[in-house]
């Protein structure tokens, strides 16, 4: 296709992409961070006291609110001795001119599933301790993630918010005549996402970086440095070397965030 038929938007986009690729090749990022440096993360727990757990997270200018509700329900037939975890993301049209009202987009579904996988596969929640009566009644943990302001990297903002909300959530056992108790926790997974710009993988991309990235990679690790979940995204590829370098950075940043932000 000749450049003639390209729209102004496309030309601007192309220039922006070229510029970000150029500066990253020179070792720089648009906002001055190092490649393996995340934006400042501010976690405001218990923002919604009415929920069993909640956390507002600001990751740079990205802002999400995660609420955790814990309610009684029936267990799945094939796991009569296990509580239930369910995760939902709402990409509210409030958060960006590009988000639309209506049923969850495929982006929102992927977001919810990737966050869910990090929590589920790390066995963060001791689901076996959420049984009220075997095969009849268990606690259901609902994680609802509301995107309020979008400046890139929703996966990490939502994962952090979900983990923080769960760490501070209680099981409302007083509703069944017992005493409320903290949600039983086994592990603390942290997810770090990378964007590939040109041939550079940068951690915690902001919106400008995300928009010009060819590929995205999210790596969730636990406090032992094991990898518990991964997801590659976007229509580009990564090399084996990029993969393992991202894994290493994720393990390192995970430890840091676990300690510095969550105090674990």
């Amino acid at each position, binding site marked *: 296709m000749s450049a003639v038929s390209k729209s102004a938007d496309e030309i601007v986009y192309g220039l922006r992409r070229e510029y970000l690729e150029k500066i990253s090749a020179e070792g720089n990022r648009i906002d001055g961070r190092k490649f393996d440096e995340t934006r400042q993360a501010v976690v405001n727990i218990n*923002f*919604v*006291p*009415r*929920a069993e757990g*909640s956390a507002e997270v600001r990751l740079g*200018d990205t*802002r999400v*609110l995660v*609420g*955790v*509700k814990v*309610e009684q329900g029936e267990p799945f037939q094939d796991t009569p001795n296990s509580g239930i975890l369910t995760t*939902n993301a*709402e990409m*509210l*049209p*409030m*958060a*960006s*001119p590009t988000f639309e*009202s209506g*049923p969850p987009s495929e982006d929102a579904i992927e977001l919810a599933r990737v966050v869910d996988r990090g929590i589920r596969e790390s066995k963060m929640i001791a689901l076996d301790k959420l049984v009220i009566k075997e095969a009849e009644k268990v606690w259901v943990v*609902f994680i*609802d993630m*509301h995107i*309020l*302001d*979008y*400046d890139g990297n929703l996966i990490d903002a939502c994962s952090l918010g979900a983990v923080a909300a769960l760490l501070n959530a209680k099981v409302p056992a007083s509703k069944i005549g017992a005493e409320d108790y903290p949600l039983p926790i086994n592990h603390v997974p942290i997810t770090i996402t990378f964007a590939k710009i040109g041939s550079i993988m940068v951690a915690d991309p902001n919106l400008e970086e995300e928009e010009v990235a060819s590929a995205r990679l999210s790596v969730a690790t636990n406090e032992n440095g094991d990898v518990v979940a991964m997801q590659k995204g976007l229509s580009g590829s990564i090399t084996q070397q990029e993969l393992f370098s991202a894994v290493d950075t994720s393990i390192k940043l995970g430890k840091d965030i676990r300690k510095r932000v969550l105090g674990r």
Partner: protein
Amino acid sequence: MIELGAQSDIKLINEEGLRNDGRKFNELRPIRIEVGVLNRADGSAYIEWGGNKVLVAVYGPREAFPKHTQNPSRAIINARYNMAAFSVDERKRPGPDRRAIEISKVISEALEVAVFTEQFPRTSIDVYIEVLQADAGTRIAGLTAASVALVDAGIPMKDMVVGCAAGKIDGKVVLDLNKEEDNFGQADLPMAIIPRTDEIVLLQMDGNFSREELEQAVELSKKAATYISNLQREALMAKYKSQESEKEGERSE
């Protein structure tokens, strides 16, 4: 309002005439408004009103989409009231229910009275109202914050719309019901006015009011509206002051 068998047992006003949260009959819950709290939106506001926490974002005027919704002679106001799943005691399924659709409609209509929509034909002005925590009176809190967010977005308006509610508990007309009062009271009257012209732009009511009680309720709300209107103005001033002082800072650097 849910009817309970044991309704009469619950006492909402004590011997000293005070309500379950210590308020007098004509006293509002604490209200706090912040302006310009979001980065991406064209305008935004956050309100805490008692236990209510409501965030509002405004986008527009922008080309209305899909095209057949465009009005060739004015902007359409598209308010969308939404409750977060975790905002209420029992988790609410995401997505609009019938209640939310009705509330979105009456809020849109109320704002249309105030906005000079004829200045922006074929566009939509989208007002997203997210209830993060609910404690009775969310529509009124959302509408009050929405007016502020519209100003923050630079949308020209006659005046800001102010919401307020009055109700009846233990047979007495009182201002601004909280959740328990709403559940066990006898009437609720959410209302919104444009203070400068005294126009009523939103009005709903359910329960049971005599003609006289209704007049008392409307009067209570009208007085409160003046007070809330000032809070709206102060919140906007606070933002512009802080912007001014930033600029001052820049100049003096």
